[in-house]
């Protein structure tokens, strides 16, 4: 059963070191920290971190973000962890848990960008059965095509695509996410589509309470930070 879920964007710039001397977007980091704090406060016996990646896989629970992949000069990973690093969303999620002081059990699950909806929903259902009180940290965001300067340039379909995500997070009804358009998501660089569908599979009923902590697109990518109460 899901005790609570938090949604945070898997944007590399969440890692403070990567933006250089300028914190650039401290309010986004604060929102993520607040969402994770609420997740931890729900008292989960295990937290599952979920995010999209090149393949569907379980990663070592001690896996951490490979900063060096984004900023070779920071060169931190090699010294600490010579093993394979989890995909960016999981690395960022693990980092958020660390920063939030969470020391309990954790599971890091990646889900392939190309995983069909049914597989994503099934994975979500499986995760919800990890225990009586499962915390879910979903590292997902929306399109990257919301402005002329966006990574994917402006696409007029992006606003509606992202609005559906925000509506689901705000209202707690994740049902519409089960039918997300995979092709459209790909065209809008919404690489987190599979992660959203895992969330939908894990929380099939309407969440009894939700809170949106951040919803904006400062760089043309739609970031949503949200907390959802579970039914456990």
């Amino acid at each position, binding site marked *: 059963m899901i005790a609570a879920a938090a949604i945070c964007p898997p*944007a*590399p*710039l969440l890692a403070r*070191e*990567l*933006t*250089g*001397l*300028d914190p*650039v977007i401290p309010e986004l980091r604060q929102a993520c920290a607040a969402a994770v704090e609420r997740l931890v406060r729900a008292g989960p016996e295990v937290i599952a971190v979920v995010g999209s990646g090149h393949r569907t896989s379980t990663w070592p629970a001690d896996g951490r973000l490979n900063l060096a992949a*984004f*900023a070779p*000069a920071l*060169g931190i990973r090699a010294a600490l962890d010579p093993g394979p690093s989890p995909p960016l969303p999981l690395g960022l999620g693990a980092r958020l848990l660390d920063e939030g002081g969470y020391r309990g059990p954790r599971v890091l699950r990646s889900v392939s960008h190309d995983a069909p909806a049914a597989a994503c929903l099934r994975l979500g259902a499986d995760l919800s059965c990890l225990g009586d009180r499962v915390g879910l940290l979903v590292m997902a965001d929306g399109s*990257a095509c919301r402005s002329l300067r966006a*990574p994917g340039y402006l696409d007029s379909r992006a606003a509606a695509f992202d609005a559906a995500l925000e509506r689901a997070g705000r209202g707690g009804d994740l049902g519409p996410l089960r039918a997300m358009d995979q092709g459209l998501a790909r065209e809008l660089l919404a690489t987190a589509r599979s992660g959203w569908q895992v969330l939908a599979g894990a929380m099939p009923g309407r969440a009894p309470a939700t809170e949106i902590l951040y919803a904006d697109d*400062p*760089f*043309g*990518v739609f970031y949503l930070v949200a907390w959802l109460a579970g039914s456990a």
Partner: protein
Amino acid sequence: MIPPASGGQEGTALRLRERSFGPEQRLVMAIVNRTPDSFYDRGATWDEAAAMERVHTVVGEGADIVDIGGVPAAPGAEVTVAEEIRRTVPFVAAVRAAYPDLVISVDAYRHQSAGELCAAGADLINDTWGGWDERLPEVAASCGAGLVCSHAGGLPPRTRPFRVEYGDVMADVLERTLALADRAVARGVDPSRVLIDPAHDFGKNTWHSLEVTRRLGEMVATGWPVLVSVSHKDFIGETLNAGREERLTGTLATSAVCAWLGARVFRAHQVTQTRQVLDMVSAIRGDRPPARAVRGLA
């Protein structure tokens, strides 16, 4: 290559005034001339008010050190010790009063004036003339000041190179500057306040200055902090066939190469541009993060 000096250790902190600068920091030393006839500014700060205005400007632009001098490097009318003191000592005192924490360097090669300048508040004696006055280390030691040990190829002060030749110019630079550094420490100068400087153009033709730039890493490898003073100098003008007003690009290019090779203090006329070059090189070397990185990270 000459073996590293006994006195220096690679990567040690440089101390100036009360501050300590790590090997990853690159400092801008802004030139403030109290002369009517220096080659580049041609007396622009001969007037004391203009000189103080220049200090305000360079401090605002982020200079880490100001270098105040009263005697031009080029030959010309004699500047006696008394005249040098008249030009510089009250001014150093005024700068010290205005900026209690600012690192003040003095471009001076005679122990009498250097002593007066340190008493007025200078922190570093920038001896461009290669230790020609053997009593400079005593003065630095007694005042707790630092000392720049430069290479002028044995030329007397305020003389130009004439048919100078070296078997190996960098070997000569290392031999002389390291001997000066060791002498300074032996006479009581705090080793963390000693720098070495190849002194571009001093006792060198253009080929020699290009060579010491190319091989600056050999100086850096000695462990002593390396200062370079290349701003608008003749070797840049000759290399680019550029007049005195056309040497900024060459100056900045040379500064970038020196920074890449590990120089730590850059004596400069243009603080803002030099600061940008050093910050850029520091970021490329991985010593300084970008000011703001978002591209590709959203």
